């Protein structure tokens, strides 16, 4: 009786959504892992090749430079996005006139897709800043930042921080306003300085906001594609390709479906491990308050 009732409920409510989830996500994901052990060429495969595709992937020098570039990008963007977002949240939650307008302005870049933001900044770095630099004779923007690997890296970081800090700001605002005013009042009466209140009271009490925001920025950093494509396109000479773009190029441009998919699996493992480490470390901080 109970079993039939549950089965009926499953058929009515669970079957269709789970079937879609299974077909769209589970099937390609498992097939993707399976195919990395074959000589797949995008259409079919002839034989199993063991770990050959992984070995080949790691013998690819451009893959190593992509991994290093992606790692640096993830760390730098994660730190800067969260520092800036937290600072923006502090500005907006200080009782100010026009705080709402500030919040709107900080959030707007987040509404717009990375591809559109990327081309806006491509115009800024390639055309607007150089011509302004000539006018006022500033040396730093005269050559487009997108022409050199080092400056192109910082261009990517600037656009990414600008795009994502607004979203993370909302998460930090939620954390900040969830703190009971009584606690802050108590800290003030005990004579805690503003800085002390920040580090010993506010931040520990909103540790959950940090866990979430760090997780989202970590994942976003590894998966970044749109801004990369529209801003630098991976150039100059494939030196600013993040891992997403590298995989895309390897499979769909160079036709290396076997190594492309192996690199994609490696990317998945990197994201999963990094996210698990980050969440467990952050969770521990939450408990220790």
């Amino acid at each position, binding site marked *: 009786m109970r079993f039939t009732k549950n089965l009926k409920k499953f058929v009515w409510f669970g079957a269709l959504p789970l079937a879609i989830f299974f077909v769209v996500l*589970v099937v390609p994901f498992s097939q993707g892992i399976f195919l990395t052990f074959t000589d797949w060429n995008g259409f079919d495969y002839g034989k199993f090749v063991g770990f050959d595709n992984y070995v080949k992937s790691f013998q690819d020098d451009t893959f190593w430079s992509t991994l290093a570039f992606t790692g640096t990008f993830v760390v730098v963007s994660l730190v800067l996005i969260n520092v800036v977002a937290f600072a923006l949240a502090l500005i907006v939650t200080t009782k100010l006139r*026009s705080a709402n307008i500030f919040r709107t302005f900080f959030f707007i870049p987040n509404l717009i*897709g990375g591809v*559109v933001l990327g*081309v806006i900044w491509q*115009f800024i770095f390639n055309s607007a800043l150089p011509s302004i630099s000539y006018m006022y004779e500033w040396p730093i923007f005269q050559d487009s930042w997108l022409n050199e690997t080092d400056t192109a890296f910082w261009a990517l970081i600037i656009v990414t921080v600008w795009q994502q800090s607004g979203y993370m700001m909302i998460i930090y605002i939620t954390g900040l306003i969830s703190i009971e005013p009584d606690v802050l009042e108590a800290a003030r009466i005990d004579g805690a300085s503003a800085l002390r209140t920040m580090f010993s009271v506010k931040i520990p009490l909103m540790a959950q906001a940090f866990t979430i925001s760090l997780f989202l920025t970590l994942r976003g950093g590894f998966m970044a594609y749109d801004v990369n494509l529209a801003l630098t396109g991976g150039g100059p000479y494939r030196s600013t390709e993040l891992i*997403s773009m590298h995989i895309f190029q390897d499979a*769909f441009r160079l036709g290396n479906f076997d190594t492309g998919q192996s690199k994609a699996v490696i990317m998945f493992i990197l994201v999963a491990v990094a996210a698990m480490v980050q969440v467990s470390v952050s969770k521990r901080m939450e408990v220790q308050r």
Partner: protein
Amino acid sequence: MAKMTFKAKARTSAVRSIVWVVGLIVSIAYVMPFVLVLINSFKPKMEILDNPLALPVEFTWDNFNQALQKMEFFRSLTNSILITTLSVGSLILISSMLAFYLSRTKNKFTKVTFLILVSSMIVPFQALMIPFMSIFAPFVSLNNQAALIFFYMGFGVALSTFLYHGFISNIPTELDEAAALDGASDFTIFWKIIFPMLKPVTATVAIINALWIWNDYLLPVLVLTPETQTLPLSTYLFYGTYATEYGQAMAGLVLAIIPIVVFYLALQRQFISGISSGAVK
């Protein structure tokens, strides 16, 4: 607060003024790129090269006329609206139903299923995009818009179900039981009692998914054809082709930005509360 000394008050207001000035400067920096695009969209090409910061001398709508036509603005806008609303609508339906099933039926199967759904959120699209395209090629060539909506349902169902699940778990089961005693079927219980109570999460689910789907690039670029392309795709293509026609390129960017910004300004409160309640889970 009443006992604050005069000195402390003066200090607080000084701090506030400094914070206000910092906020103002940063706000200007944040919108500056958009302002730059906007003022240059009204200028002829030579004027832009001359001084990108200056206001237009020879104010012209010509760039917009050109961009509207060349990027097939209204067609891509319609495509974007169609894809986004149908995907978000279907996601709301299937995720709320699945969450109802998973949170109201407690057994090993539902527990494991929920765990799989949650952990699937860590899988990047890139990890399955290559086999994805070969598996679904026949479906995509049959009807690429329907295929894309179907894919969004599959990729979005985990997060949306997770959000609904948290909310439904907090609705007391006594409500369902009372209705069941009155002879209501599960179907009636869900649609007449539970679903109407889900409005706040539904708003969150709608906004988070709409932002993602509206701006998505990588999946639609693999799936859609030139006739069915969405706004980000046509904007990028247009920019790539006419990048040296600065004025037209800028007008194209303005057109691409306007719809979502208008939508945001109209529903600002829902956006902010949607994102903050979506994140706390």
